[in-house]
């Protein structure tokens, strides 16, 4: 050992640079992260698993809905409606019944989500031009399934009747105007296209929050915090050092999700990949900062975990990931605006599907940056350098 090293300066001022201490923390956290193989594997597998589950299993445009037909009369028109229903993807005609009680029983038991009732004298009224009613009873406990199928139903039936030339409408009514629909950015109305960008944000939120939420409480629980606090390292250096390794993990996760989204689910990236990367990095850091803030407030890892979950839930519900943002009441929208996922989903959908660049999304980008700054400020102020 060499005598009298130069760094022992008598005035006790901390040797080395702030960056050096931050780097020490980063290296330490990175090594600890790689030591925990199971967690590391989960970080990579979780996004892929979730993406496949959501991408393949979840479809807001439902298919093969169990349907029953209540035939009050045995007519050609009735049969041709029945045939039309059987021909579509939307409905799967399970049973044909003739009594109203059976219809109720089918709906209640869940054997059928839809019952189409062809009333007595339907064909006759139709031919007379009386414009008779066709009753459709739907199990609206799942409003999403019910509404999209209901929307499809009238189209299916009128096309069926016209095509079969069973009926000639006595007075073909021409509407005063026509509405031409133009589904922009997602012409096929594929829900996967909507879900993949949303899922990108959701998965990142969930995993990243937890990583940093555990980071400070873990040191406290393992007893290493006392040692760390007795060293000349500052709260900001500790925080940034603990966040940095997970920024890399977050970006890798994002890359995996986007990669699978593009290759498997054919989600386009119309916008600038650089904008997407920048927004993702910002979002990753914001979530890590929020998780770290929880970590400085919670007394133990379990509490930190619960806080992360409490924060995660409104992120999913109010961000526009699950339900349309514009449909929420004002107060819920305000909460939504305070959640990073809301802004990130807007950015990602805009960049990936609409070809926007980050400059046109200044509001959401600034909002993300603002949330990050607030979280970091709280964390650094909350972090206690003593054991008091």
């Amino acid at each position: 050992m060499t005598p009298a090293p130069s760094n022992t300066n008598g005035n006790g001022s901390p040797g080395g640079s702030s960056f050096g201490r931050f780097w020490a923390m980063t290296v330490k956290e990175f090594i600890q992260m790689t030591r925990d193989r199971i967690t590391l594997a989960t970080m990579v597998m979780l996004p892929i698993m979730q993406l496949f589950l959501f991408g393949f299993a979840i479809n807001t445009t439902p298919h093969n809905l169990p349907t029953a037909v209540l035939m009050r009369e045995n007519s050609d028109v009735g049969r041709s409606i029945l045939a039309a229903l059987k021909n579509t993807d939307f409905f799967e005609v399970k049973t044909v019944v003739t009594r109203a009680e059976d219809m109720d029983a089918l709906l209640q038991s869940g054997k059928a989500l839809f019952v189409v009732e062809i009333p007595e004298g339907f064909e006759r009224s139709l031919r007379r031009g009386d414009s008779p009613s066709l009753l459709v009873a739907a199990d609206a406990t799942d409003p999403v399934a019910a509404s999209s199928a209901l929307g499809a139903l009238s189209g299916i039936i009128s096309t069926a009747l016209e095509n079969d030339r069973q009926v000639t409408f006595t007075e073909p009514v021409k509407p005063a105007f026509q509405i031409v629909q133009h589904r922009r950015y997602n012409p096929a109305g594929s829900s996967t296209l909507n879900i993949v960008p949303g899922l990108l944000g959701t998965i990142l939120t969930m995993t990243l929050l937890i990583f940093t939420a555990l980071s400070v409480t873990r040191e406290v629980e393992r007893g290493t915090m006392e040692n760390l606090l007795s060293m000349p390292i500052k709260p900001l250096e500790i925080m940034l050092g603990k966040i940095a390794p997970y920024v890399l993990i977050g970006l890798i996760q994002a890359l995996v999700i986007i990669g699978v989204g593009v290759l498997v689910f054919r989600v386009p990236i119309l916008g600038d990949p650089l904008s997407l990367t920048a927004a993702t990095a910002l979002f990753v850091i914001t979530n890590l900062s929020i998780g770290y803030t929880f970590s400085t407030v919670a007394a133990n890892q379990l509490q930190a975990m619960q806080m992360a979950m409490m924060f995660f839930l409104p992120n999913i519900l109010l961000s526009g990931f699950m339900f349309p943002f514009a449909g929420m009441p004002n107060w819920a929208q305000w909460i939504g605006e305070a959640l990073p996922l809301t802004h990130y989903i807007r950015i990602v959908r805009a960049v990936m599907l609409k070809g926007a660049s980050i400059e046109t999304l200044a509001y959401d980008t600034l909002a993300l940056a603002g949330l990050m700054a607030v979280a970091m400020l709280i964390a650094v102020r909350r972090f206690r350098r003593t054991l008091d």
Partner: protein
Amino acid sequence: MTAAETYKVDAPETVIDVHHLTKSFGGRKVVDDLSMSVKKGRIHGFLGPNGSGKTTTIRMLCGLLTPDSGNGTCLGFDILTESDRIRRRVGYMTQKFSLYQDLSIRENLEFVARVYGLSDARGKATAAIERLGLKGREKQLAGELSGGWKQRLALGACILPEPALLLLDEPTAGVDPKARRDFWNEIHALAANGLSVLVSTHYMDEAERCHEIAYIAYGKLLAEGTVDEVIAGTGLVTFTVSGPGADRLQAELEHAPGVDMIAPFGTSLHVAGRDAAALEQAIAPYRDRPGLKWEKGEPTLEDAFIDLMRRSEDNFK
């Protein structure tokens, strides 16, 4: 371990100088009006029963706890306002192993070196590993080390940034006698170079290895000085009685007037009192009991501590 010849310590003559430190937790005074001073290059033993406030005092000295009242300096820096500077120059070894169990020996040492801003962290860690006798095991995880090795590693990490003052909180708890002896040799070698040490312990033999000791109970400093001074300060007169049945005398003498302290040591019994005449009177009826051998002796440090502990119990219970 021959870390001794390593570095010359630059520190004021009085490394710890604190006055009237008080700290309460939940309304209970854990440290009560404590003043103490430690001279440069001295090994200061810090003794007292469990929960007497030793750890709290040490934590206040290195800035981990803020005293409710009181003030003072550590290495010449104000413990209330200059804890950043204190942190840089003080090595604190916690009671519980507090290095990272999931990092290797080398990684732990490099982390410490980097946090303290040492140049050539890798080289410093290598030197420390060689000094600790851990060459070849540097990739082992700290959590896999035995108690004795963990303690050596913790001390190694503590002295890596070349502190001027070591605060060691029960460093040898649960460590075998050989490792304890090595540890103390190391501490003495470090102190010979001007490093000051405040070490808390429960072991009498360790207390006797300190230059000076301080005894604390119920948050109050009860005695301070060299071992001899502390023993003399209790004013105890001690008799040692040995022979068949000597240990049975304890029950008979326990509450006799004039007997302040009684403790068995193997087959013999230490009987001590502060009033020599009263003590002689108390033991007089037993002195001629056949087979018993009475000897007037010097009280040991342990006698002194047990007496201090008893008295503090009487005062604070």
